[in-house]
């Protein structure tokens, strides 16, 4: 885990209305199998990607929450979520489909500053 580049995926878009969330998560899964230090920050409407209770079959679509749940299996375990983005949507960590670390704005600033590259959705 100490080799490679520090790459953060910044995910800010809600799922389903566009395929940005799905395609961005697919990129994260691929990045996970490379020998890099990959992390993910869910922020703003992007926190909806990891909310529980989703059922993509209602739209004949893949369930984005299930795609996100696969992240740890692909070696992506540095998962962060913006606390303020959760609060604005009346969400708490227990509403999410997988364990994530809640960060305040200052901690997110430090996370961003520590990256070699940031890829967004």
């Amino acid at each position, binding site marked *: 885990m100490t080799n490679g580049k520090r790459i953060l995926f910044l995910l800010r878009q809600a799922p389903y209305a566009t395929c940005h969330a799905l395609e961005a998560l697919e990129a994260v899964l691929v990045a996970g199998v490379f020998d890099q230090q990959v992390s993910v920050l869910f922020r703003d409407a992007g926190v909806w990607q990891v909310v529980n209770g989703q059922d993509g079959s209602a739209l004949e679509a893949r369930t984005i929450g299930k795609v996100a749940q696969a992240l740890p299996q692909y070696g992506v375990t540095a998962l962060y979520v913006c606390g303020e983005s959760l609060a*604005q949507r*009346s969400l708490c960590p227990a509403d999410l489909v997988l364990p994530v670390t809640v960060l305040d704005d200052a901690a997110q600033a430090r996370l961003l500053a520590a990256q070699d590259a940031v890829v967004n959705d």
Partner: protein
Amino acid sequence: MPTLHLVSRAPALAACLEVAGADDAILLLEDGVYAGVAAGHAADDGADAPPRSLFALEPDVRARGLGDRLGAGITIVSDAGFVGLVERHQPIVTWR
């Protein structure tokens, strides 16, 4: 005949509410259903604005896991219900 407003993105609800008449109906669909989430403090929403007939499209609500998260007073409608709203309103205005 009253107007039907289709709100397909959450932030667009605010603009819609500025010009929607008291008898108009508002249907939240696609990402617009997030605007129906019982409000924390601000953000995408506006669901605690003046009372108008507020609906949300069932497949969009279910896909997003919002079944138990929508504010009280929002009526879930099926695609058939959507068609019924179109029958009873004119014009239809889309906000995205």
